[in-house]
């Protein structure tokens, strides 16, 4: 796999949400509006980059039998440090992203990529993988949030849209709506994959 493929595989072909099926709980919980989706996506991407590179650096040192607890300690430490740093040095960013950061600890994409990719590959490849997976996660969240916010609130990024804002279907921003949109999007993705060959 060349570097470009390494980077872009997460966007669509191996999308963490639609194909690998990782990180579904934040995907469903936070995708009720586009601005939340973007915020969660960015925060998760930063943590993913840091944890992937760190674990790739340590991959020869960590005894394989206890790798999972070691990864969890590394990821949790990393998330906490980022949370504190943002709160101290960028209060504005903290006000908009701060609420998502504790949610990242339970985001299985982070641990999933550490286990499936970073502990077998070099630092540079792990960096590309993290960026690609982070962007793929953000894209998937935005796709779900686009439909949920538009149909459930008649808005996009908090701005009312003509026609849709008249009688929004509230169920779409609640949990069932998340499952409905998510299921339909996976079906669509698989349909395209079976037609197009990838």
């Amino acid at each position, binding site marked *: 796999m060349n570097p470009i493929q390494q980077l872009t595989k997460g966007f669509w072909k191996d999308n963490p949400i639609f194909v690998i099926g990782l990180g579904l709980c934040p995907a469903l919980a936070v995708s009720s509006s586009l601005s939340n989706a973007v915020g969660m996506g960015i925060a998760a991407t930063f943590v993913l980059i840091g944890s992937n590179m760190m674990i790739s650096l340590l991959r020869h040192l960590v005894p394989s039998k206890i790798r999972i607890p070691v990864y969890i*300690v590394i990821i949790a*430490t990393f998330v906490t*440090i980022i949370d504190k740093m943002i*709160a101290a040095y960028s209060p504005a960013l903290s006000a908009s992203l701060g609420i998502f950061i504790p949610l990242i600890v339970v985001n299985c994409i982070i641990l999933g990529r550490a286990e499936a990719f970073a502990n077998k590959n070099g630092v540079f490849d792990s960096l590309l993988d993290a960026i690609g997976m982070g962007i793929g996660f953000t894209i998937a969240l935005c796709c779900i949030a686009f439909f949920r916010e538009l149909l459930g609130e008649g808005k996009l990024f908090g701005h009312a849209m003509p026609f849709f804002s008249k009688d929004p279907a*509230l169920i779409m*921003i609640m949990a069932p709506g998340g499952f409905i949109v998510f299921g339909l999007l996976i079906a669509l993705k698989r349909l395209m994959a079976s037609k197009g060959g990838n």
Partner: protein
Amino acid sequence: MNDMLRMGSFLFIIAAVAGVLLGFTEMKTSPRILENRLKQLEQARAEVLPEAKKFNDIKSENPNEGLLYTAGFAENGDLAGIVVNVAPKGYAGPIEMVLGLKTDGSIAGVKILSQKETPGLGTKLADNVFLAPFKKLLQDKQKPVFKVKQDGGDVDGITAATISSRAFCVGVTEALGTFEKVREQLPTLTAPTALPAVPQSGDAK
């Protein structure tokens, strides 16, 4: 056995390094985080009680209770109202709110400082989706009942976030309770003459 010792010590080292890093981060960031919070609080005060220019913290005589409320004074030294901090229990932790109350006990402004509600649902408490109708209610009705509509009140809660909406109402009620408690002592208060109330962050306004 040897293997177990080796892995145990590795885990120990990793956890120790993580602990040291976390302690160091906490040490470096906590003063700044506190400072940011003070600034935020100062701005929030000015926002919820726009008439007031000077603030004076009123502490309880019982030192364990800490800050009771903050009195706000207009430019000419008249009492403009009080600012009360409340933190009702929300869906996933306390919702820190600041309320500005005018001298007649009516609400001048509300601001959510921090919250841990469900993103996309309970977090709307701080949005205009929820606050704009709430402000309209304050203007339209003389004595609104601060309960969500399901509970027989006047506040239009957030759909799918009733617990958060209820907590908001509890906070408002609590602040009004504080006002009733301190009502008598209000006329005795005088404006601070020298420094602003929170000198650490005097440049925030």
